[in-house]
């Protein structure tokens, strides 16, 4: 009975779902601030090689909601270095930059709603308990989706900033392909131990291809083993594909500078809304120009959403 009902209902549901998908009319393209600064009025865009209309430009002086996600589970000495640096840099942001604090252990959870009150932000960061499992990979899609929703419903810039020390061995999900049968001396499947994490990163990359929220991250603890290198490489790829940026710290002394660099990059990014009218394919390639300057903007978008 259930199977019959499902068989009758599902095709109809699929058709209805397709029909109700709202067509996208614009793409918000993230681009980093340049030196010298970009000119708000000089933005031009091409979509798949053809000129496209720039609908709106939001720059470093415009409103920003910064979603700071804490993904810290490891060495407290590094985390203790990151906390004051992060608080200092966030405190120094302009008043129209509102900061939310979330944490990624278990599931993505809100610690502090977006607020201009830096004391609340600082308190949330100070009280954050660095235990549990690494959560960046399992929460980054949710964080981006929240960012996209804010972009859709308000006229502000939105960025997601992960502060992480995540180690691939500290994930709940098994990306490390550990040896299960130790007696299997002929096992060659682990010769390229980074395959699982590369696949996961590729899947995330595909999943985030439709997102418009730029991702930033500061990784406090760089690891040099092959699996972690693939993981860290994947993080950088995710950030750069989203129009954001990432930075790794190899020592504690690097943390303050890295935090400053990445908070600044997130706070000063440009968000340029480009009209999406004649694209019929599943992907769109966008190039931004500022006057005659070519900008290293987020270039490729999936339109499947």
């Amino acid at each position, binding site marked *: 009975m259930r199977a019959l009902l499902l068989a009758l209902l599902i095709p109809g549901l699929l058709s209805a779902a397709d029909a109700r998908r709202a067509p996208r009319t614009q793409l918000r393209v993230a681009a980093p601030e340049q030196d010298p600064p970009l000119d708000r009025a000089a933005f031009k865009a091409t979509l798949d090689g053809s000129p496209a209309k720039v609908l709106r430009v939001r720059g470093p002086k415009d409103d920003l909601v910064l979603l700071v996600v804490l993904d810290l589970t490891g060495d407290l000495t590094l985390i203790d270095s990151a906390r004051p640096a992060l608080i200092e840099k966030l405190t120094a942001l302009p008043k129209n930059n509102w900061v939310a604090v979330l944490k990624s*252990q278990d599931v993505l959870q809100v610690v502090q709603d977006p607020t201009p009150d830096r004391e609340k932000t600082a308190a949330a960061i100070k009280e954050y308990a660095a235990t549990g499992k690494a959560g960046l990979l399992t929460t980054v899609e949710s964080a981006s*989706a929240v960012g996209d929703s804010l972009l859709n419903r308000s006229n502000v810039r939105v960025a997601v900033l992960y502060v992480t020390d995540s180690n691939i061995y500290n994930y709940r999900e098994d990306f490390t392909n550990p040896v299960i049968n130790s007696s299997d001396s002929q096992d060659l499947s682990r010769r390229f131990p980074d395959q699982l994490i590369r696949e996961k990163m590729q899947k995330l990359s595909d999943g985030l291809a439709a997102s418009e929220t730029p991702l930033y991250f500061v990784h406090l603890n760089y690891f040099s083993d092959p699996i972690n290198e693939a993981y860290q490489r994947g993080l950088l790829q995710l950030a750069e594909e989203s129009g954001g940026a990432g930075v790794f710290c190899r020592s504690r*002394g690097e943390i303050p500078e890295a935090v400053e660099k990445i908070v600044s990059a997130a706070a000063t990014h440009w968000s340029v809304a480009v009209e999406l009218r004649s694209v019929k394919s599943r992907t769109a390639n966008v190039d931004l120009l500022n006057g005659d300057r070519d900008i290293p903007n987020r270039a490729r978008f999936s339109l499947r959403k």
Partner: protein
Amino acid sequence: MRHSTRWLAVCILSAATAYGWQQPQRPRTQPPKPQTELERAVEEFKVLTRDLGLRPDAPGKRVHSSAAKSGWHGRIFENFRNDKLDATPHEVVQRGGSRNMLRRNQFGFNVGGPVVIPKLYDGSRKTFFNVSYEGVRERIGRSFLRTIAIPEERTGDFSQTVDNAGVPLAVYDPQSTRVNPNYNPANPVSEENLQYLRDPFPNNRLPAARMDAVAQKAVSYYPLPNSTAGPFFRNNYFVFSPETNQANGMIFKLDHALAEKHRLTFNGSFTNGKAGSPRYFDTIADSNNNDRDFNARRGVLDWTFTKSAATIHTFTLDVIRDLSIAGRSGQEGALGAIGLRGPLRDAFPVFRYSTYLGMGRNNPNSVSSHTYYYLTDSFSTRRGKHRLRGIGQYRRYQVNAYLPENPAGSFQFGPSITSLPGIVNTGHPFASFLLGYAETASATVVDNPSYWRGRYYRLQTTDSYEYSKNLTFSASFAVEVSPPRVEKYDRFASVDLGEINPYNGRPGALVFANRNGRGRSLQRTRVRPETSFGLAWNPGGNAKSVVRLSYGLSYSSVPIYTTQWATQGFVGIPTVVSPNIQLQPAMKLGDGFPALPRPLPDLRPDAGNFTSADLVDPTATLPMYQSAGLSMERELPGQMILSISLGHARGQHLFVSNTAANPNAIPLSNLVYRDALNNETFRRTLRPYPQYQRFDVFSSWPAGNYKRNAGVVRVEKRSSSGLTLNATYEWSKQMDDYSGPYGIQDFYHRQNEWSLTSSNQPHRISFNFAYELPIGSKKALLTYSDWRRHFVDGWSVSGITSLSSGEPLALRPMFNNTGGLVDALRVELVPGVNPAVSDRGPAQWFNPAAFDQPADFTIGNGPRTHPHLLNPGGQNHDLSVTKRFAVTTERVVELTATGFNFTNTGNWADPDNLIGPASAPNVNAGKIIGSRGGRVIQVGMRLSF
């Protein structure tokens, strides 16, 4: 009906979510209207995160949405190998053979996510699981090339037998031995000055009536030659036999957040399997390894208490257990079948006759079980600029072992008894075997398993101090106390080198735990104070550079031995030794193995006399390691990272095995006694502990030393275009006084053994890359969005290349005529002859004329490993090609083809390292015969969801 309706609603919601309905309609309360865009964003943030269940105050059940993907994820995979995909290995091609059979399937799954039991438990925010299973079914053909007796030799006809130079080898009749009346003791024994006269067998054939009945029956279980690969009947037996491997394993993890500050994690794993060893020959006399059934279990329970943001407390209980049962069926009745008598347990005995493939296996039936408990409590907190961490750990080990090494006896046959006494390159081990004349024989009589117990206590504290933003110091200090291991039933024995042996009144007698006023252990409590120091510094405050300096001092703990070593007296090891290997055998097979002199347990001080007695180090000495390192990492433009590191390490009192430690060795100054050393009765008087043949120190005598210097340069290049490159070069030089397959020559002057570590490869280069091909919908080229995207999207390639120089050459003399004083004789250097050759190649890798066989009763002056000559280096190139098919954003099929040694490169085998005398040179010395390696392909499919 109501149940069905609810289920239908769930179906509709799930389907709608899966196919893209973004935001289900939700009832919203009417908040105050936002005044600004930022306020509007905050309002949206609050509503959205509440609906997605991302807030502590969110309703219990989340609304499903693609924005809150937290369902179950995992993968299913299969890896497949078949010999049809592989290249024929070089060594097989060179023998004219064909590829070995290979069938291999490796399969499994992984799934993980929140624990949700409908209507019973919703752990979607706090309880998570992850399960991985992997199974292996493998059948792989193994090929071996060995040397066995030719058919004529099996019947006692040695008329065709030749030495390594192809010169006929004479076999002499032991029964014809007589004193040479013309022997001049003032001169060395030589063919012109023989001490004993002995007649060769007529026509080099053993008379049938003289052949031992046990040996003849044993020969019926021995294979016939089937190959002509080598000269002089060498490498005349090629065997192809399947090795099987079946295993099933699982890893499961469960973690649960108890309130905000407590977290429980459980990790468990098991593996069960059966490893079937290939056979050299398919009879009960096969000498290859045993089949083995095994299982392993592990459980780790971890509780983390986060007292505050600065203080974390973790408690861990880890239990590991594994069981191994090795053996082969069909051994019953083996002793009766060959007619060997004695106090032996039923299995095929071990017969060894030098370079020929032997018969019988050590440890024909064994069981061992290991259980380890680890209890760890760690505490981490911050005090000002100090980050402190304390760790306390208790470890308990339990090892139960039943490992009778040679229950059916082990019999060694040498050439001496069939040689012309005192003349090398005469006589033949297989002839000695056929005559039944063993040089030595021993057996292992085990009535009980051993139940070893050990425990360790460890306290450790570490401090990380931030001196400034750019300079951090770290220090660690640990103390570990390990009371000595005990045997549950006090079946623990060792030679005490200070105890007087009643047999001869000399020091060295067997003592037993918990008897005669001794404690339950025969070892001492060890204390390990360990420390380390390090700093990390950003020179000039430049965050792109970091310099690290480190120093560490540590000790190895005494392992809890996993065998029945040190149970002599409870275990009987009756041993018979030839009084003079040239003149008289230890025993004749047909006479049977001598009866045990006394029943077990034999707990008298002289119970271990005339055996290789177990000797436990009575001191509190522990292997000590010191290391110092300096490294620099520098971030370069273009996302490139350069790392340079230098390291120095040294170790003292490292645990070494019997080949590198022999407290009962006869000092080499006694070589002056020359041929008299062949007399066991005389030789025994020269030993420090004459009542023992030697000592078995297992792998636990603290006598080794090593030193290592190394430098590593590593370059990493990352590119957002999907290309990553890693290149590493390592130079190292490691010296020691113990390593290598042959052992050391002089146990009393270890400084003479100081040479390159036998495994030292001075230059190693590795190069890894991973590249996502720039084609497909998100890439620069072929950005199709129609059906063609399925073919061009998702291609990636990765590779690993490694090159290394060879290990140092270890040369061996062909003969060892030192009266049994030297186990590992070295070669003699020929002055003025360059050991290197100008045009090095397989025809001549080194110049054998630079080395010589040492004269009889002298040691070689060559190094244990050569300081400059290396074996051929190796190279390997692995490549993996992967194609992803994204079914949905959540479901991906990945196909992988991996080529191991995909270039099908052959690496040269090591050159022949045997150096013969001028009278019987090894014509192959310095030559490389053949190469090895071949391409192996594995294809795999993985569905991830």
